[in-house]
């Protein structure tokens, strides 16, 4: 059983990591068509969903989603639901991984074979996602505490740069009153989805009572504004659409004159690599546990058999990711990433509905 501060780490990592996924891409595509408004909408939406979900899940102390579903829903409903959720979490991790491989090749080591890079990442992630739920939370804490100062440093460095064009930012702000599109809301609300990880990580919490909830919409708003506006301040309102990995190009525009490492890009890349890997471990751990939840209804005999099943599941997940790595070129990957963001929001609502129904049924029974 762990302290509730770990919930905030789950939230924080998701909020920070969105830069690597396709959230900035979606927002920047819609910068004249309601991106800012969608940010405001998604702050309200995301916070509401977060509060509802954590309130409900706190009535299931120490229980994960598979247990909740098994306990309250019939198997023919529960099984497909768990499948869908497991797939969504798996994809969320896989997309982060595959896009990171692409970024690595483009920005850091063009001469390393992509196979090597993806195998290196996958080795780490598969080995670590079998750890205990609590252990992953400890690792998450350590990683964030090491990396957050770096992120803060880069952010400050970015904002005090004299070449940062506040005019471009102002121009985007003039487009505030535009009706937002669905995909930009779906994208922007992605940064609040750290809470859905409770579906498994709730097992580690005794009973979740959240304090300082006001920090969540506030920090979410800041993160989203930074996500959208900082690249625009660097590349201009029009130039920004030419960048694929907007944030990496932005980081590459910043120079740290007095440090051993001159290009901020490298610090940015490495701290985000560390955080992304941990975030993928979090997501794959959940996917693995969900799969275990619906595959192993009856208790598996012995530790060995259970660990074998783990490896089979992880093997499939790995194979899928390797296939994605080979099959997806940049355009397909971007499309898939954006499609994932669009699908994710209904998935989240579905999760919320599932937990809500489960809660109702349990209450009725009690």
């Amino acid at each position, binding site marked *: 059983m762990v302290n509730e501060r770990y919930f905030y780490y789950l939230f924080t990592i998701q909020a920070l990591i969105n830069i690597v996924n396709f959230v900035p891409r979606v927002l920047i595509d819609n910068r004249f068509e309601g991106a800012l408004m969608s940010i405001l909408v998604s702050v309200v939406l995301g916070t509401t969903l977060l509060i509802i979900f954590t309130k409900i899940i706190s009535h299931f102390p120490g229980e994960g989603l598979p247990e909740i579903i098994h306990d309250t829903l019939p198997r023919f409903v529960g099984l497909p639901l768990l499948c869908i959720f497991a797939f969504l979490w798996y994809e969320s991790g896989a997309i982060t991984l595959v896009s990171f491989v692409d970024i690595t090749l483009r920005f850091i*080591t063009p001469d*390393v074979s992509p196979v090597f890079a993806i195998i290196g990442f996958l080795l780490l992630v598969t080995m670590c996602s079998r750890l205990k739920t609590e252990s992953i939370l400890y*690792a998450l804490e350590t990683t964030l505490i090491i990396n957050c100062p770096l992120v803060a440093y880069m952010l400050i460095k970015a904002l005090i740069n004299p070449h940062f064009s506040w005019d471009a930012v102002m121009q985007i702000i003039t487009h505030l009153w535009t009706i937002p599109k669905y995909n930009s809301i779906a994208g922007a609300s992605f940064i609040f989805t750290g809470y859905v990880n409770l579906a498994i990580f709730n097992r580690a919490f005794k009973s979740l009572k959240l304090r300082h909830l006001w920090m969540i919409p506030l920090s979410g708003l800041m993160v989203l504004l930074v996500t959208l506006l900082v690249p625009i301040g660097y590349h201009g309102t029009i130039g920004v659409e030419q960048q694929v990995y907007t944030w990496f190009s932005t980081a590459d525009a910043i120079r740290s004159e007095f440090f051993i490492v001159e290009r901020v890009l490298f610090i940015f890349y490495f701290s985000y690599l560390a955080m992304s890997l941990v975030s993928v471990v979090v997501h794959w751990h959940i996917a693995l546990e969900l799969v275990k939840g619906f595959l192993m209804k009856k208790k598996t005999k012995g530790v060995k058999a259970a660990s074998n099943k783990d490896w089979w599941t992880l093997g499939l997940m790995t194979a899928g990711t390797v296939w994605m790595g080979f099959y997806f070129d940049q355009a397909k990957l971007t499309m898939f990433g954006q499609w994932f963001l669009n699908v994710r929001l209904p998935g989240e609502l579905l999760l919320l509905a599932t937990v809500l129904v489960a809660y109702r049924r349990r209450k009725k029974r009690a």
Partner: protein
Amino acid sequence: MPTKPNEQKMEEWLVEQLTGLMDFEERSLGNSGDIKMIYLRSLTDSDTVKRFIVVPSYEMDVQEYENYIFSFPGSEKTKDRQQVMEFVMKGYIFIRIKDSSYLFDAMKIEFSGISSSITEAIVQGPNDALTENIEINVNLIRRRYQSKQLRIEPLTIGNVSQTTVVVMYDDSRVDRDVLQEMRKRLSEISVDILQSAGELEKFISERKYRIFPTTVVTERPDRVVFNLAAGKVAVLMNTVGYAVIAPSVFNDFFTAMDDKIQLPLVGWFMKLIRYIGLFLTVTLPAFYVAFTSYNPEILKIQITLLIAGSRAAVPYPSFIEVVLMLLMMEFLIEASLRLPKAIGPTATTVGGLILGQAATQAGLVSNIMIIIVSAVAISNFVIPLNMMAFTVRVLKYYLIFFAATFGLIGIVVSTVGIVMYLSGMRSFGKPYLEIFPKRAYQGKGDKQHG
């Protein structure tokens, strides 16, 4: 007299068991012929035997003598053959007076006196180190921890060595789960010889193959006391001048006893220094490999050129250079550890000065490499506890391997791997790497949990 044959038999049995041992003694005492003693010369204090056993036996009658012997603390009346055998092997004297058997404590204990601690030296503060005698160690700790809650549970481990092991804890503060676990693991140990704290550490820890120590092995009584007060369990052994403390987490290995003595800000600074030292000693060689062989563009251009210039004469890739120099350094450390004190400085001079100087001039290694190797060696010694220092010494090769195969990405990925591995570890059920750990015992009013 129903017991008589029994007592006679016990005596005969004991004689039979011990005959053939070179230091076996069997003597009749007094004028009556009713008193007999059996003991092993090498384990007993001959002065005690003469003054308190032999001489009085001629000055009193048998009944008085029996009372007299029994009045000594540590004397025992017994009928158990097994116990007699065990105690005689410890240095007790078996005395038969008429029909009863007594065991008289005349142990001779040879040990080096209390010396100051060597492996965990500090600047200020208490200097005593644990000795190789358990009685004295318990005394050293009791004197510093004067609480009636301090519990001391003795047990014996080792089929042949029969080492006395003592579990110490503060009853009001200890974490019950840890204590249970410790008792269980100690009772499961089955070995012939147990004669170092390191072996004990291995027997009671979770995994067989692991690289990080999960229990602190210390020779400082003040560290033991400090940990007892924090609700931990200490295990002391006879014949060993070290104590094993559990549960121990990552941070414990970077705590020196100085930290308490220094002013708070200074203490934090010292701790920060140790973590920086850890970071440097583990990553510097790996970074060197990655920067020279994979990603020279990351550094400032001046630094890159500096390294490249310094490496101009070196004929092989950087990781061979690094491994070569690090191995030389390891040899140097090993050699200066084993060499007699008189030759020791020669090794360092030859190795450090001459080899380093000549190697750079010959162009076998770069100047910067020499600096890095010395920095690595020095910062490794910053870690206060030896077990961890050795772990870190091994750890850097793991990073070098990944740096040589994947470059900088390898370093970052394997560092994340280390963090994950550490987070997955447990010391007696407690998380090994938690940045803000829950204390087993908080303040006075709190109840212990568990």
